């Protein structure tokens, strides 16, 4: 019962806000457009997600300074799903049905996205998901602005196999035991074998979340690397486990010149917590680095440092994904002149927005975007030096071509109107 009363109260408050904004000249007409921000601010995931909330607040503030959207003010609605997966679903429902938001920017882990998916489908709203992920998904209500495996993992392996990358012949695939590393490693394993790597030259290892004692595994890697062939480590180790992993690597004297480690989940934010001296030369593959010299990037970094009131504030890849996603959403809304969910969903494919590394990203029919792939080397100041870059933008592939279950699937929300169209059976789902 308390809810109805609260509902009445918030409606009254909303009315009051609408009245108050009515006096503002800048936003002459209409109630504010609400934008949901669904990132954990407490619990274990707060470490990564809090900055994404701040980025969204900054972007909305900037947009309002430009006069809002469709002449209306944008109003952020922040909720804290507290790193609790069922709570993600509850909060998503609250954002959509109670706050009536026009789109949601949020989630970090795959499980949080999986948890809110049914809610977005049921209540028909838009989710912008900014983190690199395992692929194998394309939903009508979700727009994936992070990298799919072909936009991060495969180019990184290609680089390590190239002359400049050291012509690696033996591979350690080390990851945290959850779906993103599992799937990425499955894809990489299939890809490496197709490139002529013997199965005996691939070592796969999984560790739990927050694994802190890496002595045995690092010494195993060292042993594996002594087979007389150039060895490289592909790390999908997630979150907190990275710091002890890199500390152990440094202490056991594994140098990047002997066994380079390329990481998919270590960015500027994570490096801020590590003494980088022993890590010089180890690699990371992303679609964005703070160190990229580009006017758009410089402006963004400047704005971000001013917003955080800290000169040490760093930017990273998922933040850029939110920037692209937000700009695409704004363009799509402006194009159709309404925040109507169905119209915006239909308008989004084909929308372009500049990314921060000098290119222009396009939203594809499969709800993924085109991105450049960059390989960066850890620098002493916790930043990355770009050592390699794809020549153009790589389109995100929802269903990988390297796994038997998914190579026949295709996602196309423009012509096929289907997220998992089977090209062999010629039918959807």
């Amino acid at each position: 019962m308390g809810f109805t009363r609260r509902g009445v109260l918030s409606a009254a408050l909303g009315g009051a806000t609408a009245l108050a904004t009515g006096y503002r000249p800048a936003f002459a007409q209409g109630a504010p457009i609400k934008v949901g921000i669904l990132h954990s601010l407490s619990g274990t995931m707060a470490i990564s997600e809090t900055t994404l909330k701040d980025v969204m607040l900054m972007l909305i503030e900037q947009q309002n300074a430009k006069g809002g959207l469709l002449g209306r003010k944008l109003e952020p609605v922040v909720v804290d799903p507290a790193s609790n997966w069922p709570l993600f679903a509850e909060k998503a429902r609250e954002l959509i049905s109670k706050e009536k938001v026009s789109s949601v920017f949020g989630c970090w882990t795959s499980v949080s996205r999986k948890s809110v998916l049914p809610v977005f489908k049921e209540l028909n709203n838009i989710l912008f998901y900014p983190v690199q992920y395992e692929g194998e998904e394309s939903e009508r209500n979700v727009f994936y602005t992070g990298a799919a495996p072909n936009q991060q993992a495969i180019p990184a392996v290609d680089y390590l196999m190239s002359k400049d990358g050291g012509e690696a012949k033996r591979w350690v695939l080390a990851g945290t035991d959850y779906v993103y590393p599992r799937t990425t490693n499955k894809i990489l394993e299939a890809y490496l074998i197709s490139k002529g790597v013997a199965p005996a030259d691939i070592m796969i290892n999984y560790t739990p979340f927050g694994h802190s004692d890496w002595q045995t595994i690092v010494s195993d890697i060292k042993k594996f690397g002594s087979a007389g062939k150039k060895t490289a480590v592909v790390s999908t180790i997630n979150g907190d486990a990275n710091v002890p992993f890199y500390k152990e690597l440094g202490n056991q004297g594994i140098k990047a010149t002997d066994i380079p480690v390329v990481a998919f989940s270590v960015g500027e934010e994570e490096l801020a917590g590590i003494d980088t001296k022993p890590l010089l030369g180890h690699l990371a593959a992303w679609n964005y680095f703070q160190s990229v010299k580009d006017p758009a990037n410089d402006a963004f970094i400047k704005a971000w440092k001013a917003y955080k009131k800290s000169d040490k504030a760093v930017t990273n890849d998922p933040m850029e994904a939110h920037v692209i996603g937000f700009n695409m959403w704004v363009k799509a809304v402006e194009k159709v002149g309404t925040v109507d969910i169905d119209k915006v969903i239909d308008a989004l494919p084909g929308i372009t927005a500049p990314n921060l590394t000098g290119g222009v990203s396009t939203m594809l029919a499969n709800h993924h975007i085109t991105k450049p792939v960059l390989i960066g080397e850890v620098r002493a100041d916790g930043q990355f030096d770009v050592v390699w870059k794809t020549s153009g933008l790589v389109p995100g592939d929802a269903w990988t071509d390297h796994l038997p279950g998914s190579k026949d699937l295709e996602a196309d929300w423009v012509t096929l109107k289907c997220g998992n169209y089977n090209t062999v059976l010629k039918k959807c789902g």
Partner: protein
Amino acid sequence: MPFAPLLRSFMLCCLVVLSALALAATQAQAQAQTPAAMPAQGERLAAGLERFKADSFADTEAAVAAIAAAGSAQGVAILSALADRRLFAGAAGVFYRDAAGQAFDALTGQPATIPADAAMVRLNNRLRNVVQAALGTMTLLSPDPAQRVRAAEAVFRSRDASALVTIEAALTSEQNPRVRRAFEEARAAILLASADAPEELLIAAARRIAEAGDNDAISLLRQFAGQTTGGLKAVIDQGIVSIEQAQRIRAWGQTLWFGISLGSVLLLAAIGLAITFGVMGVINMAHGEMVMIGAYVTFVVQELFRNHAPHLLDWSLPLAIPLAFITAGLVGIAIERGVIRFLYGRPLETLLATFGISLVLQQAIRTWFGPTNREVSAPSYMAGSFEFVGLQITYGRLWIVVFTLCVFAALLLVLKATPLGLQMRAVTQNRRMASAMGIRTRFVDAMTFGLGSGIAGVAGVALSQIDNVSPNLGQSYIIDSFMVVVFGGVGNLWGTLVAAFTLGIANKLLEPFAGAVLGKIIILVLLILFIQKRPRGLFALKGRAVEQ
């Protein structure tokens, strides 16, 4: 049969003499050429340096080759600067800083100021190896023995055949046994790599490398195992087998060491709990947060040093220890006075209240310091590793083991040999009697809890070296700590010690077979079963005090 070794040494001697002669000849030639060579050398250097300006990896590689070939005096300085990210190229020329930060013009070798438009010359891992190889060949005759060893190791990796002459010559006069060994191994590696050498020499080289017996050696042997035949292959295979055998034995020692090191981490995390839980009977779920506070104190101290006295950074850790003890101890005393004292005799309520406190402390740290990890760097004496009877031992872990044992000894001393310790034991054994004897039991309670918390804070200092300094730090240790204390037997410090090392070693023994996760699960299940068998742990306190 004694003929063969004789022949081999004869051949080697011949080779050495020959190469010494060759070296002498080249030196004589170089001396003869000197006046005429000078401008050519400078030109070649200039041409090499020019290519640094292109900022492409291919050009940089060519530049390195040119500089190495030029053989000019500042070549070593330039390439060392390149390797250490101290080389800058711009329109005005190429400049480098020496290790002390003094800037020089690369072409002339004269002091200079680096123009603003000069950018650092970048490398990738492949080029780093190229630079190391070139530097190795160039510095084989360096006056510094450590530099010579490094150079020999670089040559061992690069197997640069052009270095062979220099090595042979150097070996005739080298006195330092460490350098000699490194040179001999490097020579063996080069010989093994040059397929056209006579078989006797190759076999000798393979033997020499097999003797080295380390990871690099087996790596090298495995690389050539597939390409050879006949006697040489037999020698190489035998070498591989013998190294593998030695490695297997060493692996056991290594596992044991890993176990000891994990055990000491567990002990360090649990030892404060052994006081608050073991001695006082207070279930302190906020124990992990005391560890976290200790780690954050370390961060703050280091940050202060970094900003105000960077040259004393190595001292930040020793200084952080007492500060962490005091800070965590004070927080502990505040918790005891503010909350726990109202809950004595109600252990389960204490558990809930302290769990609440742990949540508040976590979120408070998250609010003050931000949710992200904080950087705590390793002081120079804790970085890196060394070899001890073939075991790779990292300094960081070694220090933690030593430190843990010191903390343990200090704690025993406090409990057994100080008036406060006496009073603590008296109060925990019989509160009312102790009170009747004039002991201020409340004061002792607060002090005991403060001691336990303070020790947890000290643990945080050490754990900041191997784990994240983040608000989640404490959570990851709390359950393990309880397991250790319960397994060892509540109220018994020695039990905690034995339990920590047992669990650590058992975990590491299981890890290679079962994997990290399954190993931990097996340990937990075994622990649950063990407690059914001995509900009071390994070393149970006997007597009536137990039955409460």
